[in-house]
């Protein structure tokens, strides 16, 4: 585990600040359970929505008797339905997340914890999926802030290691999780099998998808020199390189192009994409950037 394990994922001050936030969805989703979210469906909340003519079989409890008295006609009074929001977090715990300083895995877990806590505070249904080359552990259906310790322990205990195959994990997630909602993917996106191939599974479920790419400073600005044998920490693949300025420049421009390609893909499919470095203050990310991106309010 990373060296930052001693530090709690979320401290008390920060929790207090998170309580003021809520996760917003750009889409009105239908959920099975009633929640605090406005639904498209007409339901039984206190908020008036519309009237419609009575047809036999309607629940006479919803007849507006005042109107009947005045007009002698039966009208049904409709109210807005309030539903809960599904917040799913796909957390990358593959081997590559353990690489770099500060640790990407730790950073990702903290982001996941913060977003999940915001969801819990707002009575959203929070689902956590840790994945590597497939979904390795799940904790779904978390609701209310009472389950915060469970949430944190799940995140703390999620094992980091193994290869990275987002497409397989997304497919598994999509099969298990049929409900709509907000889906946040936290990963370094360094997936040789092709990260973008997994996103259509999420889009297909009509989810409001957010992609947060977490990179370490070593990945963004490599501090390498000399003749090196670079070993992939996930699959042990070897690249023998002689570091030169040309090579470094080429690497950086490749990284940038890779990130841009993902950003472009996401933009065209209405996915929110955000790139961050582990050196970037985590609190600022949640309180400022996620808010600016409209994930939280």
């Amino acid at each position, binding site marked *: 585990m990373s060296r930052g394990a001693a530090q709690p994922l979320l401290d008390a001050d920060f929790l207090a600040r998170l309580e003021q936030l809520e996760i917003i969805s750009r889409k009105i989703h239908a959920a099975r359970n009633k929640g605090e979210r406005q639904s498209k469906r007409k339901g039984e909340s206190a908020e008036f929505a519309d009237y419609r003519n009575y047809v036999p079989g309607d629940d006479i409890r919803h007849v507006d008797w005042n109107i009947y008295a005045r007009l002698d006609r039966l009208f049904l009074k409709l109210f807005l339905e309030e539903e809960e929001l599904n917040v799913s977090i796909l957390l990358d715990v593959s081997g590559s997340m353990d690489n770099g300083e500060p640790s990407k895995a730790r950073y990702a877990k903290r982001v996941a914890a913060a977003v999940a806590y915001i969801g819990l505070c707002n009575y959203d249904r929070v689902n956590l999926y840790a994945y590597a080359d497939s979904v390795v552990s799940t904790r779904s259906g978390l609701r209310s802030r009472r389950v915060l310790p469970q949430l944190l322990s799940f995140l703390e205990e999620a094992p980091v290691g193994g290869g990275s195959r987002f497409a397989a994990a997304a497919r598994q997630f999509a099969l298990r999780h049929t409900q709509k909602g907000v889906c946040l993917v936290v990963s370094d996106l*360094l997936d040789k099998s092709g990260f973008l191939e997994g996103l259509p599974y999420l889009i297909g479920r009509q989810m409001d998808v957010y992609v947060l790419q977490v990179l370490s400073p070593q*990945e963004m600005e490599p501090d390498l020199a000399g003749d090196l044998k670079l*070993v992939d920490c996930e699959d042990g693949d070897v690249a*023998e390189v002689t570091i030169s300025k040309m*090579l470094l420049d080429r690497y950086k421009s490749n990284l940038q192009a890779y990130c841009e390609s993902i950003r472009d893909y996401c933009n065209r499919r209405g996915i929110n994409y955000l790139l961050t470095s582990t050196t970037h203050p985590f609190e600022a990310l949640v309180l400022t950037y996620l808010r600016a991106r409209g994930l939280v309010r």
Partner: protein
Amino acid sequence: MTLLSWKTGLFFAGIVIPLLLLLYFLKLRRQERKVSSTYLWKKAVQDLQVNAPFQKLRRNLLLLLQLLLLASVLMGLSEPVANFMRRPEKNIVILLDRSASMKTVERDGRTRLEHAQEAAAQFVQALPDNSNTMVIGFGATPSVVSTFTDDKRRLERLIRDLEPTDEPGRIGEALPLAIAYSSNLIDIPGVEGSTVPEGATQGIADIELFSDGRIGDTDQQFITRGQLRYFRVGAESDNVGITAFDVRRDFERPGSLAVFVRVENFGPVPVKTDLSILLDGRRLPGAGSIREVQLGAAAPPTTTGPADAGLPSAQNVIFEFQHEAGGVIEVRLHREDAFAVDNVVWAPVDPPRELRVLAVCDRAPIQRVLRKAMVESFDVREYQTMGREEYEKAADDKLILGGRSAYDLVVLDDHDTNRLPPGNYLFFGGVPKIDDVSIGDEVAGDPIIFARQDHPLMRHVAYEGVFIARWRALQLPKHAVSLLEGPDTVAMAMLTDPGHRYVIASFDLLDSNFTLKEAFPMFLQNALGYLASGGLLEARRMMRPGDTFTMNVPADAKKVKIERPDGSIDEEPVRAGGLLSYARTREAGVYRVQFDDPARTKEVFAANLLDPIESSIAPNESFTVGTEAVESVLAETKINRPLWPYAVMAGLCILLIEWWIYNKRVMI
């Protein structure tokens, strides 16, 4: 299994193995670093390789291998050859020509012999270690420099120590010697160890001839065993030389000397040079002692006519002058050329001497004929006639002077005798009563069918017109030389014993028309010149380098000193029999012989090359031995060995390595 080239293998192992280890140490030891993903790195490297071709050249092993493969294929296509000295069979006989023409100085200032010695030494060096080599040096005669040995260092030293001679090149004795030595090495099956030398198991030797090909008698030779290879040395062809030389006293006026010289140009350009004559090292008084000769270029061997119609390449020069005394005549060419041996010739001349001739004859017609020839024709001043009985009864002091015959020549007509003090005898119709000589049956009516015309006695004797009615068959020892022969028997012969020379004609002069023919005075003249060592002819004192000269030793002489052309002095003891033979005449020049007798007799001999074959110094491209043409190889030329199979093999190896690396993909 035998490793023929284990030294080579060891040599390459010594180079390759440290090189391999060095490469192992030089191999890049990369530091290992863990990264999140090699995905972007590999992509970056690939991009860099694609965009920067020189980076790719520097880094891509596969490309390098492909280039090497291509290079090896191209190399194979261009048919590379390595110049290796041929590895001959294990037994070698090296024939090293050290005849006069090998003294030719080449452009680099070294003589041909030195070039040949170097080539032969290199040849020996290049031989396999266990090969046996024999070295024979030859001029007119061969000498074994080294018998078969595998000691290369010794062979090399002996080859380099070989000294040149002025002898004409004759391979006639050297080749059979080489063949004999090499043939003796044939293995005897079933015999092991003790008696058979080590080389014997290796079969017949090859003969390697290092020469300029100027050898006079190759066409008369045969190679019965083994193989002859001719390594040609030398390139120079510029030479003007004296190829014929003779000195004569006039018959009529013995005080007058005629010197005949033939000068020949063997070079490719016309030349003009001076020819001078010296007597005892001093120029003769008068303008005639220096002559200018103009010679055309030598005719190339391919054309039949003269090269320059206006100017022949050879010219005869005759010097005539009065000289009553003796001395040494020297004729010198004043031109520096590559070959100096033929630029000067010497001839010793004696003062005109009174010949003393004794005729032992009872018959008047013969007496008349002899007197007429001797006294009137040849001007023999002291001519005496004795009857046969008178000769037998004559006092010793009349016939013997100083232990030898008092006469230069004794002619005996129809008389057998044993009164023969050391001297020269000419028998007509009689024989000397000595061992091994006898007379057989009478032969009548047979024609004369053979005369040895190359013998000095028979030179210019026209025997065809001579008829001999009857003669008696001669029984002679083996060393006798027959001069006239019938179908089955010998009519005239010459016999040389220590101190004596006999010419025996077994026919009566009156039974033939010999005395009526012009052949008779010619024969008598030859007999006077050859037998009586007369003052008229000097030919006996001139010889070829390498010849042996013999002379009569004066009485009372115990020792003889011979001053050689280089000034050194040989001392020889006088053997019994009154004859001196001297054979160390390899150098051209004047040999002065002095005896320690009371009269302090001094005799001079001269060795002159006078050989157009040697003087024509342009190296011979090929020559014929027997019926087989022997082509030359330049001594420096080595045998080409094709290397393309190696290039193809290298290419295949590189292809395999490339395939392996491609599959292994150890490198990006």
